[in-house]
């Protein structure tokens, strides 16, 4: 027994065991369960353990699935592009224009203020702002910019994406800021010494060196948006759908096997996207 404990192999396994146990029970087991249930059958009032491809056949046979998946991708891509634009700019400002560390920390903390309330409340607070008689419309009307209320401000793709950007930009800011802070400032000087203009420094030095941070932020935002269902439901006024809502509807109707099948397809899709991203940029040096 003594000798067994001394062996490096055994110690290693023992040290890893708690984490393995936690992951096994709370991650692997549920995923396996979902995968198993996705092959079961269901009627209006019962769930029957089986091994049938019925759920998948229905899923892939329906045009709605493709529409909803396309919609999910669309939300994810647009949100990604906007959060990247805003996040990169904010991080760039914090990292290169704010001079003292104290201010950098203070301003980065201000970026997290939206997180002090719940997701749902943050979304709902847009409604009085964007609604037909909301602040935005009444301001524009009184300024004479428009002569009737804009209908597309709320319960539209616009409001969905607005909320996504609002909620997720921080996940872009933090990893990008983190990589930018690690860029050796003498590299910027060396580039300037070599005659690079501001734009050239940005393109040839800062962006390439920030890629790992951009990639981590991208993974955060894409996975969060693709797995979301609350935002789409609230902000589209239940008029738009994404895969998350498909699953939540099935769950609401107690159609667990069908929900599981959709979840499995979504999981595989997201994993493929992440896998592709990881092939593009090596983020290991960041972790």
């Amino acid at each position, binding site marked *: 027994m003594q000798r067994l404990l001394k062996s490096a192999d055994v110690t290693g396994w023992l040290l890893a065991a708690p984490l393995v146990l936690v992951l096994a029970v709370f991650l692997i087991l549920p995923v396996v369960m979902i995968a198993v249930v996705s092959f079961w059958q269901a009627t209006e009032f019962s769930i029957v353990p089986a091994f049938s491809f019925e759920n998948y056949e229905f899923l892939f046979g329906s045009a709605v699935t493709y529409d909803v998946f396309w919609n999910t991708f669309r939300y994810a891509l647009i949100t990604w592009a906007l959060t990247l634009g805003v996040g990169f700019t904010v991080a760039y400002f914090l990292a290169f224009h704010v001079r003292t560390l104290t201010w950098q920390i203070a301003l980065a903390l201000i970026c997290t203020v939206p997180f002090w309330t719940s997701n749902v409340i943050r979304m709902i607070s847009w409604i009085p702002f964007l609604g037909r008689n909301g602040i935005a419309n009444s301001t524009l009307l009184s300024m004479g910019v428009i002569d009737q209320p804009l209908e597309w401000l709320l319960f539209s793709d616009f409001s969905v994406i607005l909320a996504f950007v609002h909620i997720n930009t921080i996940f872009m800011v933090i990893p990008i800021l983190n990589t930018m802070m690690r860029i*050796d400032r*003498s*590299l910027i*000087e*060396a*580039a*300037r*010494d*070599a*005659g*690079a*203009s501001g734009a*050239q420094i940005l393109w*040839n*030095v800062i962006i*390439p*060196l920030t890629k790992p941070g951009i990639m981590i932020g991208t993974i955060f935002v894409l996975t969060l948006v693709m797995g979301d269902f609350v935002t789409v439901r609230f902000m589209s006024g239940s008029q738009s759908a994404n895969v998350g809502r498909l699953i939540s509807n099935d769950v609401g109707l107690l159609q667990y096997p069908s929900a599981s099948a959709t979840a499995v397809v979504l999981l595989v899709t997201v994993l493929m996207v992440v896998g592709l991203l990881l092939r593009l940029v090596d983020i290991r040096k960041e972790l």
Partner: protein
Amino acid sequence: MRGGHDLELVHVTKRYAGGAVAVADVSHLFRAGSYVCLLGPSGCGKSSTLRMIAGHEAITEGSILLSGKDVSALPPAQRGTAMMFQSYALFPHLSVAENVAFSLKMKGVDKAARMRRAGEMLELVDMTALAARLPAQLSGGQQQRVALARALITDPQVLLLDEPLSALDPFLRIRMRAELKRLQRELGISFIHVTHGQDEALALADEIVVMNSARIEQAGSARDVFNAPQTEFVARFMGGHNVLALPQGRFAIRADAVRLAAQGAEAVVTSVEFQGAHVALTARAAGDQDILALIPEEQFFADPKSPGDAVRLAWDEGRLHRLSA
């Protein structure tokens, strides 16, 4: 030698926003084609001076002239200077060749031409074989060669080196300094080299500029500065000197000019250090003055002393050198 590319600092002052003065009214002429070392302890203003010449720091007052033209307001790349950074500042995402070709890329030189030119520069520093590597795959000495090639590709009239050898191990440091000297002689341009190591400055410099608390303390050829320090600071900083307070004033005397003798100042040995060719003997003389004597090893061991022994120290009056401050 190209001639005419003298670099001149005219009453240059650097004051920071908080009021701290990094460089106070410094004027100096750096002759074209010479190897100059800016020498001083950390915080003396030597790096700020270099960075102002490079254009990475704005000057508060005064001007900097290169070849007779005021360059103080020009951006770094248009001054005719190039800088080699302390940590080399190689772009980690670019290969060695791309690093060297960076400034040409910024100028819009097409790829074939800039790679050819980068190849030539790499040949100059003997790094052709590693052109495709990334900086992280190079040793410290190799990184330095790449940084040199990158700075030289812009054909500068003045190369500015910010403590270029401090990141290297002692053995490599001696090899690289020979290399720097060779390059400077071959290219015939001015090198301005910031260092806090007096041995480095003595080995390399045609001219040494000693700085202390934001001012130039003394400038001159390496031999002059070492043999005839004008101030107590220079004498102490260059090392190998004793500063003696005699009734006639303060004097410097080289430690190797002090010898043990039958007649002379009474002193008590406080430490003995064997240094190979010499033995460094420190003795305390009247008035609590510590005097260092470098005694040839053979001579010392003919009549060895240990701490606590009473000795007499003597020197030729002619070797005493009066200090102005």
